[in-house]
């Protein structure tokens, strides 16, 4: 069966380090649950045994940004909250990805008003948007699979010098 069958016949496989790292990375995405409002309830459902995010290697919800790779922004982001969200995002180590979960986070949703940011892509680099109010757990799982697709296509050089550049230092 697959990999094991290969091992019994030849005893070794050839691949690239980039491919191995990307494969390991995409199957151990640790989410930072940025649960700001009602979408967070649906995000909890994703982690429970029925939908079981552990199948995708993402069962460890880390409440510390320093241990996470993926930020799931679940809920309405107000202008006041935007500074906090950005600060937590900045604390996450590279490489990192962002899911905008739900209508509010992606576009402001039904809160077409002065206090709510009309889409978090105004201050965060979003990788995957999720529709729904709130999205079904399957929808969030699909978003995670999209993230896994993105990660599997990355190579080591994609992340070189990225933290320095983001912090405003020039490339030496």
């Amino acid at each position, binding site marked *: 069966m697959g990999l094991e069958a290969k091992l019994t016949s030849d005893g070794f496989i050839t691949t690239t380090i980039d491919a191995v790292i990307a494969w390991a990375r995409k199957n151990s995405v640790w989410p930072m649950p940025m649960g700001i409002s009602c979408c967070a309830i649906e995000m909890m459902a994703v982690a429970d045994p029925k939908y079981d995010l552990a199948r995708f290697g993402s069962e460890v919800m880390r409440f510390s940004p320093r241990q996470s790779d993926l930020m799931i922004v679940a809920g309405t982001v107000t*202008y*006041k909250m935007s*500074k906090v969200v*950005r*600060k937590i995002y900045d604390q996450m180590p590279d490489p990192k990805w962002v899911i905008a979960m739900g209508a509010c986070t992606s576009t402001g949703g039904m809160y*077409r008003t*002065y*206090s709510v940011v009309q889409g978090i892509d*105004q201050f965060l*680099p979003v990788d995957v948007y999720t529709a729904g109010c709130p999205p079904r757990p399957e929808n969030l799982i699909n978003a995670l699979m999209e993230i896994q697709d993105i990660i599997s296509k990355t190579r080591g050089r994609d992340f070189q010098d990225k933290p320095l550049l983001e912090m405003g230092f020039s490339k030496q």
Partner: protein
Amino acid sequence: MELKEVIIEKLNGTLKGAVLEVTDFRGDLCLTVAADKIIDVCTFLKSDNDLEFNMCEDVTAIDWAKRKMRFTMVYHIYSLKNKFRLRLKVNLEGETAHSVSSVWASANWYERETFDMFGIKFTGHPDLRRVYMPEEFEYHPLRKEFPLLGIPGSIPLPKK
């Protein structure tokens, strides 16, 4: 004598000319009070032994946009002893009102919220700062001239 009559009679007895108008709509008693008498009226309503309006449930304002006296202050107070709710209204000449936080401590944050949303200044308030909006914000969102989606660029976002 019913409690409503007691309230009006007592106020007219001790504070002459303070109550300008009395309406009783579907059992909700509402008194319009002269702007400079509001602290006296509130102190009396709270301290009188028969009335004891000891709970300030809400303080807010109404923006009438084009009316000459543009703002109306609204106070919702409750008597736990009589289980009776009373509404007080004050029509403001300008944008300044007297603070009732010396009467009910809970009015402190209600007045801060009213200041935040309507820009009404309260004289005698111990700590008149914004509650909801960021401190550097220059506008008052519940005023009628404020656009629903806000003023672009008025609240800074973090850099991308």
